[in-house]
């Protein structure tokens, strides 16, 4: 292995994101290139990565507001209707001594989505400012956002199971609330946001000073 840090982009090579084949960049203005092996679109960096990720992050934040204010579930029991939002559900469990379950929902529905969104915003801002500060740690943060996003789906699944199980007419019925739709949208938007962000942009700012 040579000592210089040579990237695929420096060498004029396109890395196929799906089959990992390296293809030489063809000259010519805006020639669209496809991977000769698997047919994927080839590009040096994910196209419009920053703009797309910003758009998805902002959209997720907007959906996060009704997701928290509108009810996730409405429970009808002997004629009484009780509507629960994410936070009121968490508080209910904490007060009734079921703190492990309250904690699971708090982490999955509040901590995970917010952590993910704030990490993405931090990465977007540092990439835009061409920061050279701790690229390794920032890449690790990116891996965290990729790994944790799916766990936010927990509450959606809990609602699904409750709705299917508790259908006893007047005795007890649980229905999904509008908040659940917005919360589902937050999860999907943040997964797409992590996909459109290109962690190679973190390292692109390093190359000018890192030529050893």
């Amino acid at each position: 292995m040579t000592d210089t840090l040579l990237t695929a982009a420096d060498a004029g090579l396109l890395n196929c994101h799906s089959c990992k084949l390296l293809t030489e960049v063809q000259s010519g203005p805006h020639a669209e290139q496809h991977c000769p092996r698997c047919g994927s679109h080839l590009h040096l960096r994910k196209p419009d990565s920053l703009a797309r990720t910003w758009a998805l992050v902002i959209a997720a934040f907007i959906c996060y507001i009704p997701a928290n204010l509108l009810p996730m579930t409405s429970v009808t029991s002997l004629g009484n209707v009780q509507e629960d939002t994410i936070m009121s559900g968490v508080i209910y469990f904490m007060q009734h001594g079921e703190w492990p379950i309250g904690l699971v929902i708090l982490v999955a529905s509040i901590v995970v989505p917010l952590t993910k969104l704030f990490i993405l915003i931090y990465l977007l801002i540092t990439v835009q400012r061409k920061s050279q500060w701790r690229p390794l740690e920032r890449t690790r943060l990116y891996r965290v956002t990729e790994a944790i996003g799916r766990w936010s789906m927990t509450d959606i699944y809990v609602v699904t199971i409750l709705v299917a199980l508790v259908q006893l007419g007047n005795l007890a019925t649980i229905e999904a609330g509008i908040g659940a739709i917005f919360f589902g949208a937050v999860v999907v938007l943040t997964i797409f946001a992590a996909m459109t962000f290109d962690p190679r942009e973190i390292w692109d700012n390093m190359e000018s000073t890192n030529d050893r």
Partner: protein
Amino acid sequence: MIDTSNLIACHECDLLHRIPEREGARCVSRCRRCNAMLHRGVENSVDRTLALTFAGLILFIVANSFPFLAFKLQGQETHTTLISGVFSLYSEGKWEIALLVLLTTIVVPLMQLLLQLYIYLPLRFNRVPWLLARVARFAGGLQPWSMMEVFMIGIIVAIVKLVGMAQIVPGLALWSFALLIVTLAAAAANMDPRVVWDQVEYPR
């Protein structure tokens, strides 16, 4: 003209590496700059993936054919299967969530299993399946949307939530779910994408 056949680029920081020589039965190579996993070599990858895929399909059928929870309250009893949860949401008019749950817990995991069978069964007998490149690319893109393990956490939370309210009886499908999650993860860990991509003919 650069010879790219022995090079691999890190997908997280774009650094070029020489493809390392195979050192042992199982080897993981990582990027020397950002520590991302470049490649994982697995011995008998095709056999292992195929065996786990068959096991996964059987567990998938069991998990979806039987109720995973029963709920008993004052002589009334309801059962739920995965698909009945989706139907309840749909009949309440929450089709957006119904669709999301249907895709992430039924459609995507089933497609993954079937596509793995389509790819690895012919490879096992030294044949190249039709449209291998397209199928393998599509199968790779499905991974983030398969959320069986998250569903399992959802089941556990729902059980604890309802346990004070009524009698909850876990069903056969619950155990199949638990095994299916382990099987899916094991299949994913035993796949060696390079074994598949090496079989694809392309103009060089």
